[in-house]
Structures are given as C-alpha cells and as structure tokens.
C-alpha cells in the first residue's frame, strides 16, 4: 500500500511549520500561552479538515467529539487518581477519549452518513446540544456541576508534576495531535481513501458507480476526524484546564472556529489548517486586546466572503500559483 517517499514530501512544510512554532514558544519568554493557543487552532483545523475538507460534508456538532474526549480524560483522572497508576492514568485518559469519540462518531455516523448533504447537516446540528443535555439531564459524571480534578491531579502526581502536566505537557500533546492529524491527512490523500473521498466529494452518484463504497469511506474519515478531536479535547481542555463543565465543552462556537480556520486556509488542503489556524489565532489574539468579544462578529462575514469570493482558501490559491514549479511537490 505504501507509496514512494516522494509522494510524502508535503509533510516537510508541515514539520517545519510546527517546528518553528514550537521553537518560538520555547525560546521567547512569555509567549508559550499564545503559541499553545495557536497550536490548538491548527490542530482543531487539521482534525476538522480531515472530514469537512475531504468529504465536503459539514458536521455542525463537531465540538461534541472534543467534549466527549475531554470527559474521557476527566473520567480517568477523577475516578482513578487514588489507584496509584501514576502517568499510566494519562494514557488511559487518552485511550478513553479515543474510545468515547469513536463510539459517538459510530452512533452519529451510522445514521447521518447514510444521508446526503443537507440531511447530514440537519442530523449533526443537534449532536453537541443533545449530548450536553444527556449529561445534564441524566446527571452523568456530576451532570451540570461538572468535574473539577486539579486536587486529584496533585494527589496523584504531586504538585510539581501536576503543574508541569497542565502548563507544558498538555500543550506538547496538542502539538503532537496537530502533527498526527496532518500525517493522517497526507496518508489518506496519497492512498485509496483519499481518491475515494475526492470522488465522492465531487459526485457521490458517479463515485458509487465507479465501485466506491461511499458510506464506508465517509465513515473512515468521520471516525478518524472524531478520534483526533477527542484526543485534542483530552489534552487541550481536560489536562490543561483540570476541570470540565458540559456547557463549556459542548459550546457550538468551537465548531464555528473550526469552520473559519478550514475555510481561511483552504478546505481539503494539507497546509490550509496551519495557515488558517495561524491567521485566525493571531487575529483573535489581537482582536481580544483591541476589541474583546467581537471576534465572531468580525469573522462570520469573513466566512461568507471567502465562500462567495474565493472558496479555495489561501493554500488553494497558492497551490494554483506554484503549479508547474518545483514547489509543487511540497504544497498541497
């Protein structure tokens, strides 16, 4: 199945991009918070793009996967902290996050992925709200009171390690998830999955006639994207913040941010989410200083502008520009 190494060159700019970002974060004092925020946006875009960009389907309830992933990590620490497991607990938390998001994506995907375009969107729009209300309504995992586990972390790991985990290692994992998402995207693009997804994105009926089991490939992309989101929730939210409230982790505005990032960078491209994540992250950071609370009001018209005027996004346009030049091999 593996393709020649040349086909995987585009991972280099990704590696360099994240490398520089990580380097700046480590070298420049006081910028780690901003950098880790940027890495979160890149990772969010990268994971979201794997489904939306590659299939052309939009999942408005996407944040639910981050939400259940957050709960995966939270549950692990909250209930296992006194079992003497040490850092294995973090691994268990990541596994639980992946399992929860897989289960949710299977449940939603089984219904929604049989449906086309508009009906898919309708089926997903309530997923995050629905899940939030299940947790609140049935009082699962403390219901609307949430779970606060900073005390549990200090008991389990000691004060120093607990601090390092939430201040530093959580962000390092976010970088890891972002890179993993990029690797998965490129692997899919270069193998049959990617070609099947391109075909079904362009014309689902024609794809079926070509022998493509469209539901299967949509599900593959959906589950992969969901697992990545779950891992992101487990690291960037649970481990970093050490608490979880249902109203926070199922808030729809994270879906909005994911959409903005993917469209800014270029849906269906490998580098797009990084570019989009950086543009969005930096502008959000400065908007928060000059105009707190205004970022969505400013970005929502920008989404419309991008869709109407340049649906290919930044990297999509760049890709056309470098076509036929040596750079072509690196930018997709």
């Amino acid at each position: 199945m593996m393709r020649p190494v040349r086909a995987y060159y585009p991972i280099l700019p990704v590696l360099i991009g994240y490398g520089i970002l990580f380097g700046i974060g480590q070298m420049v004092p006081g910028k780690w918070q901003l950098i880790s925020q940027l890495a979160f946006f890149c990772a969010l875009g990268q994971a979201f793009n794997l489904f939306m960009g590659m299939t052309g389907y939009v999942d408005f309830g996407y944040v639910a996967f981050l939400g259940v992933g957050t709960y995966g990590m939270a549950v692990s620490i909250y209930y296992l902290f006194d079992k003497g497991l040490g850092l294995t607990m973090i691994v268990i938390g990541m596994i639980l996050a992946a399992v929860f998001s897989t289960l949710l994506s299977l449940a939603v995907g089984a219904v929604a992925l049989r449906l086309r375009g508009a009906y898919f969107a309708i089926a997903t729009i309530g997923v995050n709200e629905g899940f939030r209300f299940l947790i609140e309504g049935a009082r699962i995992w403390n219901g609307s009171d949430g779970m606060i586990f900073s005390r549990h972390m200090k008991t389990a790991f000691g004060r120093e390690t607990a601090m390092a985990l939430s201040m530093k290692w959580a962000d390092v994992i976010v970088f890891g998830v972002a890179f993993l998402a990029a690797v998965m995207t490129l692997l899919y693009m270069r193998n049959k999955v990617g070609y099947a997804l391109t075909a079904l994105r362009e014309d689902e009926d024609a794809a079926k006639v070509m022998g493509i089991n469209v539901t299967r490939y949509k599900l593959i992309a959906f589950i992969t994207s969901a697992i990545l989101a779950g891992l992101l929730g487990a690291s960037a939210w649970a481990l970093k913040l050490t608490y979880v409230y249902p109203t926070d982790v199922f808030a729809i505005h994270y879906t909005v941010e994911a959409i903005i990032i993917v469209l800014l960078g270029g849906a269906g491209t490998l580098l797009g989410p990084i570019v989009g994540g950086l543009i969005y992250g930096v502008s959000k950071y400065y908007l928060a200083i000059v105009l707190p609370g205004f970022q969505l009001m400013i970005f929502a018209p920008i989404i419309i502008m991008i869709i109407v005027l340049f649906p290919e996004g930044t990297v999509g346009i760049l890709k056309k520009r470098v076509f036929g030049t040596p750079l072509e091999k690196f930018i997709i």
Partner: protein
Amino acid sequence: MIFEQLSGNLLQGLVLGSVYGMATMGLSLIFGVLQVVNVGHGAFIMVGAFTSLMMFQAAGVPPVLAIPVAFAIGMALGMLFYFGALKPLVSPSGSGIKSLDMRAVGMGAGILVALLVVMRFLSAAFKLHFAITLFVAIIFLYGFLLYIYGGRRQDKAPELATLLVTFSIGVILEESVKQLFTSEARGFNWAIGKLDLGVTVLPYTKLIASFGSLTIAVLLYLWFRKTRAGMAMRSVVEDDVGARVCGVNVDWQYALSFSLGIGLTVTSGVLLTMFIPVGINPYMGGPYTLKSFVIAVLGGLASPYGAFFGGLVFGLVENGSYTLFAQFQGLEPFAMTRFFSFVMLLVILLLRPTGLLKVK
C-alpha cells in the same frame, strides 16, 4: 394523578405545537423553493423575540401589535441576506463570481490590516464605535469585491457553501444582537388573564399566540392557492426550469420566498414570546433550530403545511415526554426533553428521511 397531569400537559403541548409549527413553516418554505437549509433559523426566531421584547419595554406595545413589525423586519433581513450572500451561490441565472485576482486579495488584506493598526492606536473608549466601523468596512469591502468580480459561473456552488453561509448569517445576527443588548437573559410580563380548563390553566396570551399561528398558516395557504404570486412560487417548487419556461422570474421568486420565509420565522419569534416571555437572549435560537429541524423532518422538510402538522405532533411529544421524564428520580426532565428531541431527529432520519407525515 399522572393522567390528569399528562392530559393537561398534552393540551399545553398542542397549543404550543401550533406555534412551533408556524415557526418551522419558513424553514420548509425556503428549503422547498431554494433547496437551501437555513442553518441560522433559530437566530431569526431570536430577532423576533427581541422585537417583541423591545417594543413592549420601550413603548408598552402588546406583542400582538409587534407581529406586522417583526414580519417587515424579517422580509427586509431576508432580502438583505439573499442579495448580499445567497444569490451568488444559488441563483439560477448564475450571477456568481469569477476566480479572484490576487491583487484584490492583497488590497483587501491591506485595508483590514490598516484598520486594525488604526484601531490599535485609538483608545479603548471607542471600542464599540470602531468595532462597528470595522464591521461596516468588511461589509463594504465585500460589496466592492462582489461588484468588481461579479461575473457568471457555470456550475452551482456545492451544498456545503449554502449551509456555511446560512450558518454564518445566524452567527452575525447573534453577535450583533449581543453587542447591542448584551448577552443577559431578559423577560417581560404581559398579563391579560387566564382560562381555567380544569386539567390545566391557559393564559390568554398563549391562546392568542396559537390562534395567531393558525391564522398565519391559513393565510399562507390561501396566498399559495388563490393569488398569482403564490401560484408562481408553487410552480418554482414543482419544477424551476418549467416555471422559467412559462415566464416566471425564478430569480425573483427565490428572493421573494427567502424573505417570506425569514419574515414568517421572525414573526414566529414574537408568537413564541407570548408563550415564554422570559430567557430572551442572543443565543436562545439554538434549541429552536434543533426543534425546527425535528419538526421539518417530521413533515417532510419541503412542505410548509407538513411543518405545521409536524409542529403539533412535536408539541405533544415534547410535553408528553416531559411529564414522563419527571416521574423518574435522578433525571432532570427539562434537559432530558431536549436530549429526547435530538434522539427523535436521528430516529426519524434513520427511518424516513423524506418525512413521516404525508401532507401535500
């Protein structure tokens, strides 16, 4: 005991359901004519609720009289968003955009950066003022680019595009209302007496809202059946190519049905405040979007009358399930009812994506 409670709640549900039905007719109308799912649906309901609230608070106008105002606001917003955002994507005559020139992108980015820099040096006291300036500048820039690059494109934009655009329209409305009125929940009290039915008590406001919904549904029906304009719109639903051949201006019908649909939706926001005059906030639309989708899918998505009956069914199911969930210890019935409506949506889509009710 439980049966008395249940029958009382079901009666309440039926009355509320008629308003739900009316709140979904606009969604179905827009899907029927334009094949566009208005993902920002709930935000328009919110606009209606704020219209009702503001008129009552500022001038003591009873919500009934806010109905025509809300309808006019809705029609205007509909026209604005149709021509400003949706037309390039869905118009059958294809007034889309040619591929974009890099110079324009650079220029746009330049203007934005310049604006940001200017704002950085102006003091924080002018925040709102400059936010609005920036907002207007983006809109202006957008219109300018649309004007320069407005050409014709052959293929229709993918469905993804209209979903994301209507979603963004919802976000714009929510954020604008938040900036104007803050995100705190507000309420008002319009008390005009109650009707005691034994099993339950119905305030007259609810009865008026229900009656209003029914009237609007009947008027819409008559408009579709008896007027030239209504028949032209129906012909577009049936077959837009055929309609064009017969001399119907399909482009204009798209604009008209979108704004009519938005007008109905904003109006329904007023009617809903007669039921629930509290908790009015910029983000109140989300749950209504979900409910409306359940209702629309129940009724077959493209049929406004199906939506109306779907609303009645949904009102019954919602209040019935609330009563049942309330019987269980350890459940919060309000949250469970909302979870239940989400499950219901998935189940209906699994069984019959084209709708459970057969209403033409």
